[in-house]
């Protein structure tokens, strides 16, 4: 008779068993608490407060925060699978925990020991939720042009003034990784940039909720800072001038996440098309038996699988600690374009019903475009990929 305590073994079999159980729980959460309500909440652009409560219980807000701070410490590969699953049912939900986790990972990677102890356990439970405040009315891609200013006082603490826009979780979140200039005259410009953890209080207000084409339910807002006082110990890492590096440091993971959302939306568009095309008849047979529809389905399913493989490829590189801006960029580019194309093709397959609010495809069609813009536009991804391939070729490496 053999007796053993698992947990001491970290074999890949145990890991894949655990991943299967995790994904099963995520599926149950989606079927029980999300799918029946998503369509209505989305159409009315209502913040899914109850669902967020269930996300908290499920533990999503701590997914990639280290276990020593009360998180789950999941790998990027497993995290990507969770994001894909959720995006298949309602993409907006993924933004609620992903922006939050990118903020948390900035603290985890670059914060001081004291900052990690102070913030990460409360981020992990979802007690404090938040996001990233980088974009401003006059700049998104060109972040070095931010104008929000943090002025150091004689006591060593800071006063911040400026406006941020398009900030996900802006209304319901309590804490944001805020990108500012601490030295607007610095050259190069990024040497004057810093990232703070800014909690809501006097001097920090939401000026308005932004109305959007899609990505509804989640709150996108404009945030205003007016003589907002913040202590020096909220400067991530404790040293000025590293803000851009800290903000961009989370982007590889951010891109893997947005790519996973792309896979989810592309998969959902495919699923809708596959089931509708078997039900709808024209000229005496289900439309899936017409070759024109099959050509679309063939392309759609291929795009989904290729996207998923690119995401896993990037996530594995990330988990192995390798540089993966090119891999994450390719996954983000390909998977989000796949989401756009599959949503449009699925809509065509649905004919007039694809244009109806009673069917899911019209939402997918509105949600997909965000993915090609957010977390670095796809134009920027192409440039990053090209630069890397050129650089690797110069150093004699095959891309």
């Amino acid at each position, binding site marked *: *008779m*053999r*007796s*053993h*305590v*698992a*947990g001491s073994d970290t074999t890949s079999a*145990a890991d894949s*068993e*655990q991943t*299967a*159980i*995790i994904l*099963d*729980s995520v599926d*149950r*959460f989606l079927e*029980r608490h999300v799918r029946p309500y998503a369509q209505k909440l989305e159409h009315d652009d209502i913040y899914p407060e109850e669902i967020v409560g269930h996300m908290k*219980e*499920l*533990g*999503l807000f*701590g*997914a990639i925060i280290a*276990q020593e701070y009360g998180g*789950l410490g*999941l790998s990027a590969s497993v995290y990507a699978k969770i994001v894909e699953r959720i995006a298949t049912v309602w993409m907006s939900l993924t933004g609620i925990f992903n922006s939050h986790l990118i903020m948390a990972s900035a603290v985890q990677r670059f914060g001081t020991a004291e900052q990690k102890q102070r913030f990460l356990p409360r981020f992990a439970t979802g007690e404090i939720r938040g996001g990233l405040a980088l974009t401003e009315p006059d700049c998104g891609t060109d972040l070095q042009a931010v104008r929000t200013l943090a002025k150091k006082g004689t006591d060593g603490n800071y006063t911040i003034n400026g406006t941020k826009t398009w900030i996900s979780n802006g209304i319901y979140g309590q804490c944001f990784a805020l990108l500012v200039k601490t030295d607007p005259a610095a050259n190069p410009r990024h040497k004057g940039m810093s990232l703070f953890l800014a909690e809501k209080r006097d001097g920090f207000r939401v000026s308005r909720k932004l109305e959007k084409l899609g990505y509804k339910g989640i709150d996108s807002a404009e945030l205003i800072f007016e003589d907002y006082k913040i202590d020096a110990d909220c400067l991530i890492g404790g040293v000025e001038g590293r803000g851009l590096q800290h903000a961009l440091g989370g982007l590889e993971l951010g891109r893997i996440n947005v790519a996973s959302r792309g896979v989810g939306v592309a998969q959902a568009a495919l699923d809708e098309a596959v089931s509708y095309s078997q039900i709808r008849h024209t000229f005496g047979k289900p439309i899936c038996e017409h070759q024109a529809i099959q050509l679309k389905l063939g392309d759609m399913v291929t795009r989904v699988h290729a996207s998923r493989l690119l995401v896993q490829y990037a996530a594995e590189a990330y988990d192995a600690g390798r540089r993966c801006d090119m891999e994450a960029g390719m996954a983000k580019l390909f998977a989000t374009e796949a989401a756009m194309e599959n949503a449009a093709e699925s809509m065509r397959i649905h004919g007039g019903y694809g244009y109806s609010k009673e069917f899911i495809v019209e939402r997918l069609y509105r949600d997909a475009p965000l993915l090609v813009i957010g977390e670095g536009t796809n134009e920027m991804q192409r440039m990053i990929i090209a630069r890397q391939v050129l650089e690797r070729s110069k150093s004699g490496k095959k891309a």
Partner: protein
Amino acid sequence: MKVLVAVKRVVDYNVKVRVKADGTGVDLANVKMSMNPFDEIGVEEAVRLKEAGKATEVIVVSIGPAQAQETLRTALAMGADRGILIKTDAEVQPLAVAKLLKAVCDAEQPGLVITGKQAIDDDSNQTGQMLAALWGRPQATFANKLFIEGDKAKVVREIDGGLQTVEIDLPAVLTTDLRLNEPRYASLPNIMKAKKKPIDEKTPESLGVDIASRLKVLKVAEPPKRVAGVKVPDVATLVQKLKTEAGVI
């Protein structure tokens, strides 16, 4: 009081099963497997008893191949304390399962054993009843509600005409029906914690139980495909078709 819950790894209820071409069984290649839904209800009920302070320990037991460990791990993530895997690749019929569970009962001395009313793969609906007989203890099948009162249990049962309430002495065997509770899904932190909970491995031989099949499956076949109906223009045609084509009048 210890509560023992039997959990079986079965084809997921969402899967459309296919019969193997040679008629020997159902094709299991690349098919999603999950915990039998009635067993999930059993785990939920046991965990609730523990949360209410009526149970001291929840033990889950599964009989099957190495992969049944995942089913146990799921139950541990839902809140069970430890698992027992009785490992075998052989086909195990209800009587053999009942004998194995009896052996576990002898070793663990639980105050309550919960099984599903049936497993959704072979729908036998026999294991709980056979276990009660072998163990010589009372049984309450098709449970809709359970109340533990000292060394007795009051159980509301689902029967053909409605609901029936019975009182039984503990230790006893309970089999779950669909409406007993809505089982929780495990939270991700609890899934991580479950990785550290112990699972004991045993074999039918180590428990001294002969699991040889007593029943022989002759053939497994798919139910006949339903063909599309026809619309009839009037009652006269209907009656005529019922007479000549359907042959029912």
